[in-house]
């Protein structure tokens, strides 16, 4: 549910959910501002979902449209899964921010602008036509509730006697804007004041903390006194399951999940990475976890990163690397080696919009086929995909659990949307997390001859993980085809086919330990909305809305892509139509068609963004109305 501010009520209003967006220059601190608002909303008990949207350029020229950085947040008193389709209130710190964001604001929505920045120079810099000022545009004024605030001037005035320089003072404008928003949505200032003090005092910058706090308060009181808004809005706390919660973004949850997996396995974690958006944060987070025994290695390139991880796995570490789509392409050959060596290894792909460099800071789900098939020859790997920021934690542990069980590499498909987006996370009960059991043999399995490194466990078909340093188990691994059991180099045609089938069979057998696909909604009926990975929020919300509208529609979300859950085939049989929304051109759809010989209808968008719920609802309804090719035979 989204709130509508078309008519400003005379009195304070209780509303269910609000989507707001802070937009400004990439140097304006919009991510920080949005982060503070999110933290505060989480603390007062709202459900939250965020969408930071920043440009690839670190500091594009000030005032240009390509330098605009935005942070969207939905907060609510009910269960929400997305940052919201349209924005109820936009803060635009300059004309460029207004220009690039105004279209996403709902009709009649609030738009708070820093009017001081709407100078002749700035208006032209962002490409508005000569002599045009949007603030003087009647059609704009009548479509939105535009609130003009001289933020630069007011911030300067409120900090005039701070003794600080103009540069420091101007940097506090974002806090002034945040103060206004806090007043408008009735949020406490205290959590932000504490965070500001913690942030700056730690660096000995007490004076900077002080002016930021002062600007925040000045904005708040301005909201209160200036009577720009006839009322403010109250968003009651959401109803959560009892428990302890925190706010978490996907990349951080992924890093914590892998560190946890290592603890559950009583192993050291080795992480190798090469800087790449949007995966670098994994390296940053893990590099700070050295006291958990985590070793991080910033390699000279993507290939070295995966190779070092394979080396560490051979030597007995829980080893992994992280990258985005272009890095996966570079790692393909080494991954094939890992498949042949039959070592545990996790490769994270935080997907971004491509191909080539594409749009590095924008999201996409178009690496599914790459994850499954990018390697030379028949080289299957396990593929999992977290469904939400918090789910990254669970799936990280799952990734290693499966990898060591099958002695097979895993690709973990996150994406830019859940990597950067945040939501409340009900903290897991650490004691109830299942340990990951790993054994390294210490005795030879062949007392009468050389050690047999490819001798297999009946149930899983996995080979022993014998590590260097163990006496009597000396053996060689390598990229030449292996004779099963002995691990010797073999060019025997029958053995090669046997090994190709065996490497695939190991993965299939994991079906016995992965959870069945859960379906929400009717057990059979009109349609199943089936997604995978980071689109769960949008698809769940759309499905709920469709059911409210009377459709007998179910939804389900795949987190295991190879192997699929065992019951997937059965589930697909129970619905008249299978509809698969994806941020790609139909990759899961193609797989389902090929594997299950059924028709699957795709809803496909590749705009560097996740689905808007309204779009999805419309698209699904259109599919339901049309008969063409839609009904299962």
């Amino acid at each position: 549910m989204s709130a509508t501010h078309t008519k400003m009520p005379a009195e304070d209003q209780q509303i269910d959910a609000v989507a707001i967006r802070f937009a400004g220059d990439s140097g304006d601190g919009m991510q920080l501002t949005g982060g503070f608002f999110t933290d505060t909303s989480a603390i007062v008990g709202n459900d939250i979902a965020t969408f930071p949207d920043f440009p690839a350029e670190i500091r594009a020229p000030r005032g240009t449209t390509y330098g605009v950085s935005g942070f969207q947040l939905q907060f609510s008193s009910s269960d929400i899964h997305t940052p919201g389709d349209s924005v109820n209130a936009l803060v635009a710190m300059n004309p460029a921010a207004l220009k690039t964001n105004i279209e996403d604001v709902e009709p009649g929505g609030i738009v708070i602008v820093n009017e001081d920045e709407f100078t002749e120079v700035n208006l032209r810099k962002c490409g508005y036509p000569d002599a045009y000022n949007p603030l003087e545009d009647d059609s704009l004024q009548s479509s939105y509730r535009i609130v003009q605030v001289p933020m630069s001037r007011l911030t300067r005035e409120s900090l005039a006697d701070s003794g600080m320089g103009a540069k420091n003072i101007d940097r506090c404008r974002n806090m002034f804007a945040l103060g206004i928003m806090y007043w408008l949505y009735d949020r406490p200032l205290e959590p932000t004041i504490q965070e500001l003090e913690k942030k700056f005092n730690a660096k000995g910058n007490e004076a900077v903390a002080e002016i930021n706090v002062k600007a925040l308060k000045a904005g708040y009181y301005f909201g209160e006194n200036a009577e720009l808004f006839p009322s403010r809005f109250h968003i009651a706390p959401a109803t959560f399951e009892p428990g302890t919660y925190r706010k978490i973004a996907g990349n951080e949850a992924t890093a914590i999940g892998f560190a946890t997996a290592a603890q559950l396995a009583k192993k050291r974690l080795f992480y190798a990475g090469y800087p790449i958006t949007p995966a670098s944060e994994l390296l940053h987070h893990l590099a700070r976890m050295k006291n958990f025994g985590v070793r991080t290695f910033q390699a000279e390139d993507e290939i070295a990163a995966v190779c070092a991880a394979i080396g560490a796995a051979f030597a007995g570490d829980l080893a992994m690397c992280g990258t985005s789509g272009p890095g996966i392409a570079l790692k393909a050959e080494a991954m094939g080696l890992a498949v042949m060596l039959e070592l545990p290894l996790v490769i994270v792909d935080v997907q971004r919009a491509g191909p080539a460099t594409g749009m590095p800071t924008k999201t996409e789900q178009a690496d599914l086929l790459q994850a499954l098939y990018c390697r030379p020859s028949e080289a299957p790997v396990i593929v999992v995909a977290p469904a939400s920021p918090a789910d990254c934690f669970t799936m990280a542990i799952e990734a290693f659990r499966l990898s060591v069980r099958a002695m097979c590499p895993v690709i973990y498909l996150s994406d830019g949307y859940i990597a950067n987006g945040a939501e409340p996370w009900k903290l897991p009960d650490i004691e109830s997390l299942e340990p990951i059991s790993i054994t390294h043999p210490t005795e030879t399995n062949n007392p009468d001859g050389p050690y047999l490194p490819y001798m297999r466990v009946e149930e899983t078909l996995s080979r022993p993980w014998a590590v260097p340093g163990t006496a009597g188990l000396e053996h060689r691994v390598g990229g030449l085809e292996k004779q099963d059991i002995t691990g010797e180099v073999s060019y025997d045609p029958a053995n090669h086919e046997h090994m190709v089938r065996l490497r695939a069979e190991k993965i299939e057998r994991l079906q016995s330990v992965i959870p069945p696909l859960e379906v929400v909604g009717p057990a059979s009926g009109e349609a199943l909305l089936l997604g995978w990975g980071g689109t769960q929020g949008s698809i769940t919300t759309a499905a709920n809305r469709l059911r409210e509208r009377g459709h007998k529609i179910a939804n389900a979300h795949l987190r295991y892509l190879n192997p699929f859950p065992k019951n997937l085939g059965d589930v697909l049989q129970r619905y008249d139509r299978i509809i698969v929304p994806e941020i790609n051109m139909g990759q899961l759809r193609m797989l389902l068609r090929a594997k299950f010989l059924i028709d699957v209808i795709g809803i496909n968008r590749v705009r560097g963004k996740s689905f808007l719920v309204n779009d999805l609802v419309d698209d699904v309804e259109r599919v339901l109305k049309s008969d063409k090719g839609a009904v299962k035979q």
Partner: protein
Amino acid sequence: MTTAPDTSLPTYKAKDFASDQDVRWCPGCGDYAVLKAVQKALPSMHRKREDFVFVSGIGCAARFPYYMNTYGMHSIHGRAPAFATGIKLANPNLDVWIVSGDGDLLSIGGNHTIHVLRRNVDINIILLNNRIYGLTKGQYSPTSEFGKKTKSTPLGSLDFPLNPLAMVIASGGTFVARCIDIDLKALEKLMLIAEHHRGTSFIEVYQDCNIFNHQAWFYASQKDSRPETTIELEHGKPMIFGAEKDKGLVERDGRIEIVELGNGISEADLLHHDETNRNRAYMLTQLLQPNFPEPMGVLFRDPDEPTYDSLVEDQVKQATEKSGPGDLRTLIEGPSTWTVQGDAVSG
């Protein structure tokens, strides 16, 4: 530096390090000699057999690990230094050796070679330099001489060759040595010194590819030409060469020149090899045939530079001392949490 023999160690013989695999190099290939020298050197290294790991890339030389009865990994083309780094970081106690060829370590894997050297990971690298691609049947390699006629360069190659040891020095290598495949004694000796060096050791071996580039190192391998075309380096000793030991090297105006001994020039006037001098070592890498004798032995050694693997361990230790062993609950909770009781919210 030598380590006192550990009496608890089993006594190994060279054959304890030979695997049961048939060696499949061409008859007469220089790799045989290197394999033999390595297998002979390992028993004197006072390490347990299970602590050795041999890593290679792709190429003829890269088959090496299969013939060693140790742990081993025959990896992918050019990436051996990256695999070796991961192995060493996961278990710094392992004794990690890379054996690979010029195409592997200098062409497709040039980047990794540079970076393992600059990090000074405590591993040993043996470059089997035969100046040709053997396994793919004879294309020119990054060390082939200009104008070389091969299958892929029927009119002669237009690439200038890479000078491996100059690259190693420029990359910050802390142990730089050279020898030739037929000199088994020198090979064995260098391997022992390399083993004791903390940091990346790099040994270039002039290796004869009997099939595709036979006699590439003829000048350096023949009894009669060798004394004139190579010079044996010994730390602190004057740089003398020639069949009659009648020539030496001096430094004039920042350049190395050849002089004849006698006529007022004595050994004392010659350059004395200082293996701790990196700049001089670079100059030594520039001594090339036909103008100069090519240096053999240890060109450079810096035993004091810390190794990457030990620095990594130190950081982990320091972080743990500073923050205490990681507590999962604190990590999961992050900077702030809130608690929901029943359906009410409390801060």
